[in-house]
């Protein structure tokens, strides 16, 4: 077998050195009744060529986003990732390294994590960031737990504009703690009043910007009200490219910012692996979950980097840790860091502007289709349209006609008749005007 270097002769020599007559002697602590005598009922080994053929066959049953006009978003976005990014993350020194427990031979990983933390802090307008979480949704749940530790209050208010899967993850993770999760009604128009839900028991308010439905909101009045009541404002950003165009959450008074970082450097990958960004104020750093990289010096006084503040973490604190997280999204963080280094400030701003412009063009094209009404006044690169009929079957029909049009809100929030006609539509730099025209024309055909 191509992955196993030991030959039969090696095995025999090793058994002899050990003083065992057969490999099953080494399994003698396993009760005989449960030690399998033969392989389980699954296919036998296969050559590289055969495995490749099988998997290429499965991949061929999917419609890749790049093959059709594509406008699907709702928390995951298709952007162009430069070839350099994938080249760097496939270097074995990054790809096949472990968590940097031995810093002297992990400075490559540690230095890029330090650069990553700096980029995340700058982008979100916050003071510090950690070395990544699994994804945006789990980061949001960790933020709620962190707010509870800081405020020692149990009530979390969840905006009706937060991605419902994020709200579900928060609800699940707090299910067996005695937290009180208050979900505001679904906010299609971006006009909800969260301030009225905030009181002296409120630990935090969780709000997404731009919201699930695409609205861009000034969060400063909300931040003021939450702070007045002694709570924290948690801002969720699911499209991190928007931070190249919009006032960052840190400037609007956020105490914790969590983002889905997939848009920069990482592909769609059917939902994972993705990249959770987590940033906060310096004063809360010791309550932050996850790995943190810090700068220090070596025995010769030269700059170097280490994992630090580990007394927050499970391997030291066990049941008193700030989080149970161990493995995070290191390689996705590297992809993010490389892509953002390539973009730079000027590139990110231009990329954000192109996204916004593309979406603005698409809004106008779709608004002109009979049976389509645009819900948004404000948006970044994603917005909501109301169709004159249920959206899900329309989207299915568009897929049959080779247009991947958007996300039916009913898939995210089923069972609410008033939402059935809504569709979320995203447009990024990868959409050409011709793609948008095909989308508008095909939608027009389907609706007529």
């Amino acid at each position, binding site marked *: 077998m191509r992955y196993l270097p030991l030959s039969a002769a090696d095995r025999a020599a090793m058994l002899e050195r050990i003083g065992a007559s057969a490999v099953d002697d080494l399994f003698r602590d396993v009760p005989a009744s449960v030690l399998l005598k033969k392989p389980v009922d699954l*296919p036998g080994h296969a050559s590289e060529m055969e495995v490749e053929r099988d998997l290429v066959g499965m991949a061929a049953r999917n419609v890749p986003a*790049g*093959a059709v006009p594509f406008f699907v978003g709702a928390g995951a976005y298709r952007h162009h990732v430069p070839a350099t990014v994938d080249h760097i993350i496939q270097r074995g020194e990054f790809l096949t*390294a472990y*968590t940097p427990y031995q810093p002297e031979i992990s400075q490559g990983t540690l230095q890029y994590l*330090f650069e990553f933390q700096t980029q995340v802090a700058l982008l979100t307008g916050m003071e510090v960031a950690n070395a990544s979480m699994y994804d945006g949704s789990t980061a949001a749940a960790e933020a709620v737990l962190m707010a509870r530790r800081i405020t020692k209050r149990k009530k979390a208010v969840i905006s009706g504009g937060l991605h419902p899967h994020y709200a579900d993850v928060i609800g699940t993770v707090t299910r067996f703690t005695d937290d009180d999760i208050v979900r505001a009604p679904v906010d299609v128009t971006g006009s909800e009043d969260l301030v009225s839900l905030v009181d002296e028991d409120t630990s935090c308010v969780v709000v997404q910007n731009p919201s699930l439905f695409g609205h861009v909101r000034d969060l400063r009045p909300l931040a003021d009200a939450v702070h007045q009541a002694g709570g924290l404002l948690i801002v969720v950003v699911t499209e991190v490219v928007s931070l190249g165009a919009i006032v960052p959450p840190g400037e609007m008074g956020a105490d914790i910012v969590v983002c889905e970082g997939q848009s920069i450097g990482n592909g769609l990958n059917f939902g994972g692996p993705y990249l959770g960004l987590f940033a906060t104020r310096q004063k809360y750093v010791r309550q932050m979950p996850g790995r943190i990289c*810090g700068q220090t010096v070596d025995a010769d006084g030269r700059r170097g980097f280490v994992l630090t503040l580990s007394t927050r973490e499970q391997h030291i604190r066990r049941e008193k840790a700030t989080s149970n997280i161990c493995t995070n999204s290191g390689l996705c963080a590297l992809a993010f860091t490389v892509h953002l280094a390539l*973009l730079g400030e000027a590139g990110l701003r231009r990329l954000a*502007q192109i996204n916004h412009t593309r979406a603005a063009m698409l809004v106008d094209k779709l608004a002109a289709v009979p049976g389509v009404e645009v819900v948004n006044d404000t948006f970044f690169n994603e917005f909501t349209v109301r169709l004159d009929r249920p959206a899900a079957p329309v989207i299915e029909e568009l897929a049959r006609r080779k247009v991947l049009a958007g996300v039916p809100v009913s898939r995210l929030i089923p069972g609410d008749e008033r939402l059935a006609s809504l569709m979320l539509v995203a447009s990024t*730099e990868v959409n050409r005007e011709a793609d948008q025209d095909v989308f508008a024309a095909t939608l027009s055909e389907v609706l007529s």
Partner: protein
Amino acid sequence: MMNRQGRPTAPGEATAGATTAMTFTGHRGLEHEEPLLFELGDPGRSGVDLPVMASASNRLGGLERTQAIGLAGLSEPEAVRHFTRLSRKNYAIDMGIFPLGSCTMKHNPRLNEKMARLPGFADIHPLQPESTVQGALQVMDVLGHWLRTLTGMPAVALSPKAGAHGELCGLMAIRAALEARGDARSVVLVPESAHGTNPATAALCGYQVKSIPANDRGRVDLGALREELGPDVAAFMLTNPNTCGLFEDAILEIADAVHGAGALFYCDGANFNAIVGKVRPGDLGIDAMHINLHKTFSTPHGGGGPGSGPVVFSEALAPYIPVPNVVHGPDGLRLVEQVNETDASFGRLTAFHGQMGMYVRALAYMLSHGADGLRRVAEDAVLAANYVLAGLSEELTPSFEGPCMHEALFDDRFLKGTGVTTLDFAKAMIDEGFHPMTMYFPLVVQGAMLIEPTESESKRTLDEFIAAMVSLARAAKSGDVERFKRAPALAPVRRLDETTAARRPVLRWLPEESEEAAR
């Protein structure tokens, strides 16, 4: 990892003093000093060519970002060089044996990478219509089938993002099942040798954690366990093989005792590599077990993730598993994404469907090995660990009698009186060209050294590793303390001051002026 008496976190005085040749540039041959991205780049530079587009009417609601962000940009050649130079400061499994115990650093096949990058897998959106992702759902379905068959467990939840996330998934299902029978209970029992994620996860599920001691054979003290197993105990969390590298030979009695007390049995599957294809956890009476695809099934660790931690479940817990799930429908495969009021599922653990990129890699690995090859994987991994145990037993001090499973545990008794600590020993291994083993874990022995060679190493590599370890042990005993205290002398940096890093945290780059101001 740190044990209870703590390991030194600052370089001692003995380690100071430059050992490296000074050069004009600071570079040392192929070893380049590399500035931070922010010291190299500037805000105006970019390595991406983007079209200039006329701005359409702005619909940002007056919330345009006006202040400078402060990001640095690099041209493409500069970026490639920066990150390539950084990469060369890392040790990696591609470069040599990576014997971190309980981490299973095995070879990461490149076929897996190639398959995960097929546009049909890498370029599909989690919310595309199901009719356009039947192949992706097939990958999930087939992977689930392999995991269920290899473990002999009837249900699987694929979505957890890593091992600790899988633990959370397993314990939440346990709690949901107990609540459904009207008896949530309050305590989770965890052996003292357990990984820190176990107690941290139990606490996250609202449970009080009680520790179960090990016996002098490095296994769970069955008597102590029986004593703690009362009507308040929700679950027992056990790693098997355990973190001492030993198979819990009383596992069937343990399972009976746990179930007899009305509790459920969670297994941390971090060490599944030792028994894959040889033992089915379902036959051991386990109710839930997470599987680290980034350990047993060869997906790369990536410098700390992404991982993937699917969980397999017994019949008793199957109704409670989280969404999403792939099911067979009349028109092909479909996803169950919502929890209806009548469902027992405990909820949702992540926004989308889990780590698809890792599913593809793990499936490529499983298909390559097949049922016969995976069995061989476990046998070779256990053989290699026992070979290391045999080769080191005379010079180092094994903590427990063998045979071991996939990893061999030593403690620091062989260093007694030498002035050399486990940490010093590990750092000297770096100079010899090896990544050190896991040190100071598990906590049940003093100055632990936990060595997991995996099935990926040739006999030649194992022999070289053993010879180097023996030579270091002899050097320590012969009184050559200085060599250990100043190690590593040949790494890109020398020992780093972790104490100062924690006391005065510098967690991001700041321009010099603001750095001054911050002080």
